[in-house]
């Protein structure tokens, strides 16, 4: 298990803050300029950076990240290039911030699970999130990642029954990613009423921190959730900001959200 993720949560906690996990798409608008976006997220206060690697058929993603995936693929983004050209640059500019790869399982399979785990670890990646790899299918891949020191971060959904959520949490690596809404990634004006209760259940069972993600884009939402989670994930809102107004807009949004996470 990589220690960097636990450390990032511990540091934020010591400062009396919830953790901001900030997502952007590698290769959007191109590989080099996406490095500036990732650096801006950290300057804005992100504690952990999620590096999205585009897939042609992103079934868990809403329109904003779908469009970002298409731009990234057009710009020639591949997992190999992200590990060779994006990750080391982000690592250099933000040496303290844990990096987590978010992509779909087919992209990892195409590179080879072992080859990916080894290369990712060498380049300084701490974990991976694969939204189409539920626990039933993840045993083999997780063992490979464990051996390499890459955390396979599990997801919990609103539809996940309590006992299953607890089992996922007990067995988690890195942190538990609690999906806030039944649906795809993307901003939501309102989050479900039972979310805080679900977070409490998972948190009670989990030996690792618990974060909420999907639909979160405002200071207020971050503030409400910070009482029930160790942090939040923000994705689509940052991708949209970076695409519309550049890295500085993403940085400003990170700072806004981070304000909501101060306890």
């Amino acid at each position: 298990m990589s220690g960097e993720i636990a450390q990032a949560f511990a540091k934020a906690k010591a400062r009396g803050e919830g953790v901001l996990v900030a997502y952007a798409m590698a290769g959007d608008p191109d590989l080099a300029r996406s490095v500036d976006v990732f650096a801006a997220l950290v300057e804005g206060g992100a504690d952990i950076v999620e590096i999205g690697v585009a897939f042609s058929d992103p079934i868990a993603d809403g329109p904003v990240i779908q469009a970002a995936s298409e731009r990234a693929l057009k710009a020639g983004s591949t997992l190999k290039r992200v590990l060779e050209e994006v990750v080391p640059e982000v690592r250099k500019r933000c040496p303290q911030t844990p990096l987590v790869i978010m992509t779909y399982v087919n992209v990892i399979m195409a590179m080879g699970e072992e080859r990916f785990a080894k290369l990712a670890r060498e380049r300084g990646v701490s974990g991976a999130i694969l939204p189409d790899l539920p626990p039933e299918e993840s045993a083999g891949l997780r063992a490979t990642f464990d051996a390499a020191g890459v955390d396979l971060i599990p997801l919990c959904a609103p539809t996940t029954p309590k006992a299953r959520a607890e089992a996922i949490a007990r067995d988690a690596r890195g942190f538990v990613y609690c999906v806030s809404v039944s649906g795809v990634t993307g901003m939501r004006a309102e989050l479900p009423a039972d979310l805080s209760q679900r977070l409490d259940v998972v948190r009670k069972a989990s030996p690792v921190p618990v974060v909420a993600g999907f639909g979160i884009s405002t200071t207020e939402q971050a503030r409400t959730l910070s009482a029930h989670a160790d942090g939040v994930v923000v994705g689509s809102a940052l991708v949209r900001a970076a695409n519309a107004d550049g890295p500085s807009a993403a940085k400003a949004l990170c700072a806004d959200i981070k304000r909501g996470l101060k306890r």
Partner: protein
Amino acid sequence: MTTETTVGRFGRYGGRYVPETLVPALLELEEAYAKASADSSFGEEVARVLKEFVGRPTVLTPARRLTEAWGGAHVWLKREDLAHTGAHKINNTVGQVLLAKRMGKKRIIAETGAGQHGVATATACALFGLPCEVYMGALDVERQSLNVFRMRALGAVVKPVESGSRTLKDAMNEAMRTWVSQVSDTHYVIGSAAGPHPYPTVVRDFQSVIGKELRTQAQAAFGKLPDAIIACVGGGSNAIGVLHPFIGDKDVRLVGVEAAGHGLESGQHGASLTLGTEGVLHGSRSLVLQDEHGQIQEAHSISAGLDYPGVGPELAHLAKTGRMEVRTATDDEALAAFYEVARTEGILPALETSHAFARGRELARDLGKGKYLVINCSGRGDKDVATISARGVPPPVGVKS
């Protein structure tokens, strides 16, 4: 007889690669399906609807003039084109929509390529009184306007999908995204023997009525099982349906025909069994058309139903283990076969089906005289007349100019 090695797995293929949000729904479906399968009243209800509404059993037709023209085995046609709505797709949608009703689901969503599965789903929903939404690639909406109208006439909402290649794979992505958002009260009727477990099993079981009928009909018609059965393969629902009941019959050759599109070397085809590599698409591990980086490639076929870069996991297993022979037919070969069948047998086959016919001649000759070849005539070609006639019509036969 089953090729399932463990639950939901066919050798290396199958599984359930979906967002966690959908896993509980798939577990619920698996359980409901197991219960329904064990309940004889469910099987009886499906059988009753297939008889009274769909018109089953579909007939087994001797293709006498094709037999003569090809000069080899006796050719017989399993006439799924005569099932209500004009293709085999209705066998599965009747079963799944009845299952959804049993599960208390309030609405139905589906994806469609050629529109046949969409029409069949809309038909079952009209029959059983459930609202229906069909996701269809915008390109397919353009090239299958007849089926788009049929779905709308049946009361369904057709949702054109503008992302990606604007075909079946993108329609399936969008249907899955919608399902994730509305999973508690919605059943997703998948039409191919693909997708996450238990769909490949559910669809195969509902479609196996084709092969089961064929066993009985072949015995009655020529006193034995066929020597070979040939079916077209896109996602593979008609192929697994007609072939599955014969997997244990080692003397029956099972042949699947994929779309070679503009040719296998052109890169524009739908031949996932022939040229695909192992990957995960739409919830199962199977053979898919992808680049070295794991990006799914766009498929191409003149027939919208074969224009898909993946294939059902059980067919991938049957192909890899050699139980099923895999062949391909190009767009042009399928078109030629369409006219050949039209003019020798008086049947307009669907363009998908025409791919199976395109490999019929050589298989009939390979088998030789006295043997029996059955072609699964999976659907009728009315939906394709715009595509086909746009390429011009060959002169009439037997008329002096």
